């Protein structure tokens, strides 16, 4: 069966990247994020305690990356409906994120596919996001799939 939404024109857009965005990581933003998720780990909210750790100071919790939103590559696609779901995420972490870091976030369209679900046609879009610090080190990579139906 031919795809109704994920046409050849849509498939050509796989690999497209968006403009990178750079964020300066504020200590207060790390603390607020840790508080919001209810994580009392001193590494994420107590500089005095965190100085005794092997990191020598506070670091961000792994999912803090979520707060540094990337620009999304524009995908020209007609979608089945106006409903959306976040299918899940795969993360890889390489280096800690510290207060004062400048993190550059960039998204790439890794995959777009279509399937017929219980609720009709569904479009799955996989986005790869890289998080790179001011030293050029990739601190984290994220692969997320969103579902539109």
């Amino acid at each position, binding site marked *: 069966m031919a795809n109704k939404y994920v046409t050849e024109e849509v498939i050509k857009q796989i690999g497209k990247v968006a403009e990178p965005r750079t964020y300066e990581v504020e200590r207060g933003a790390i603390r607020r994020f840790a508080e919001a998720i209810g994580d009392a780990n001193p*590494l994420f909210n107590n500089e005095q305690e965190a100085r005794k750790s092997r990191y020598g100071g506070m670091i961000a*919790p792994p999912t803090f990356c979520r707060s540094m939103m990337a620009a999304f590559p524009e995908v020209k696609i007609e979608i089945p409906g106006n409903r959306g779901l976040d299918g899940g995420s795969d993360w890889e972490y390489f280096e800690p994120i510290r207060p004062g870091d400048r993190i550059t976030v960039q998204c790439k369209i890794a995959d777009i596919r279509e399937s017929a679900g219980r609720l009709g046609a569904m479009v799955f879009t996989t986005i790869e996001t890289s998080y790179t610090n001011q030293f050029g080190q990739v601190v984290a990579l994220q692969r997320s799939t969103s579902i539109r139906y």
Partner: protein
Amino acid sequence: MAAKQNYYEDVEVGSEFGPLEKDPTTQQLVKYAGASGDFYQIHYDKDFALKNNLPGVILHGALKNAFLGQLMTDFAGEQGWLRKLSVQYRGMDQPGSNVVCKGRVARKYVEGGNHLVDCEIWLENAKGEKTTPGSATVILPSRA
């Protein structure tokens, strides 16, 4: 650093860890929206959520991801490192009901000089349904 440190040699395949219990409220969802910048209304505007055929406001998938992240950074401890974290959003969770994060050690191995532990992880609702399953890999310190 107060939390107990797990070492590679002490972790057994098949053993479970957690539970990390969370009692998310609508206030926590608002805090998470503010801290993460995700202001999709289904997470704090009940009328909007109902209009979108939801039973009410629902937890951000990313918040559940963060809870499972905490389960794993607690397991890794200050000397360990969370290397990989994967989550799948299979079911919705609503505030006002407890959720619990748990994990099980699936495999341990040495690779590239690192002592690695693969874990199966999940978040379950008050009925014991695994609404957010996933997997994680941590590097643990070795006693050797």
